[in-house]
């Protein structure tokens, strides 16, 4: 499977993601410079974490106007697999490929820590190697990760199984404390209706080797490779 990791000015998880895909999982992987109009025939586009354009205006707001994003949008609309991690998730929201928006974390602090996630939908190309209710340990690192959407959008997401990950405690229960950034319905990751575009705040690439404290993030990449 060929992966493409998009590089914006200010991306800072592009190399980690590239390493996880190529170095750890031995997949053909290329960098996709945001100024180009060429997806180089990749099977999956990954929008990595970081601070594209310094998070000026709003997180992900300027990156969405990058030349390459036109191709990414068309690729997604054709059913191509797109994974947005952290800032990549924020870009997908700004781009309108996923519904909702991100607010500053409820405690107004940058959060950099391991969290527990519960797999809510294992029937996606991103989670098919997991089981429903499985609890994963994957780190987060963000300032603007409080997911927000109007009530009708939230019930729509639930009705169509689009909530893929939720913040939970170590026993797999959603609690106010476990919902570290205050996200609506504890949402940590969600997928589009068509099931080919996933956004998630936690960083699976930072949990892809035992040396990093967890290998749970591999599950997402391995699900993609299997699909």
């Amino acid at each position: 499977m060929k992966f493409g990791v998009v590089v914006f000015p200010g991306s800072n998880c592009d190399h980690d993601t590239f390493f996880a895909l190529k170095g750890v999982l031995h997949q053909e992987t290329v960098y996709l410079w945001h100024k180009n109009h060429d997806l180089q025939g990749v099977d999956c586009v990954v929008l990595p974490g970081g601070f594209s354009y310094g998070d000026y205006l709003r997180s992900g707001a300027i990156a969405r106007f990058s030349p390459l994003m036109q191709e990414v949008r068309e690729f997604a609309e054709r059913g191509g697999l797109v994974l947005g991690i952290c800032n990549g998730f924020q870009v997908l929201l700004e781009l309108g490929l996923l519904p909702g928006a991100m607010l500053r974390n409820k405690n107004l602090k940058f959060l950099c820590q391991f969290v527990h996630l519960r797999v809510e939908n294992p029937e996606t190309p991103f989670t098919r190697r997991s089981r429903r209710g499985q609890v994963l340990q994957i780190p987060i690192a963000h300032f603007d990760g409080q997911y927000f959407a109007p009530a009708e959008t939230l019930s729509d997401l639930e009705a169509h199984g689009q909530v893929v990950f939720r913040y939970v405690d170590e026993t797999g229960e959603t609690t106010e404390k476990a919902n570290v950034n205050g996200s609506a319905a504890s949402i940590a990751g969600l997928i589009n209706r068509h099931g080919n575009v996933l956004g998630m705040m936690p960083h699976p690439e930072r949990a892809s080797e035992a040396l990093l404290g967890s290998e749970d993030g591999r599950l997402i990449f391995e699900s993609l490779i299997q699909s």
Partner: protein
Amino acid sequence: MRARILVSFKESVLDPQGQTVKNALLTLGYGFIADVRQGKVFEISMDGLTEEQARRAIPEIAHKVLANPVIEKFTWEILEEEKKA
């Protein structure tokens, strides 16, 4: 010609920064503070547009770029003193 655009959170969206400022003001003894909402201000200078064209362009820019309509609302004005100049 110049325009000023004010972007702030919709009423339905919690504004934790505004809340923090409000709490600080209350702590300082300004007991009359009922609420604080924090936002952003943009001042945009334009060349070669009639006022009518500017009045079309500014809300379009605000809606498309400056505000995220999911969480934010905006107001705007053409700066009067600039018009006369």
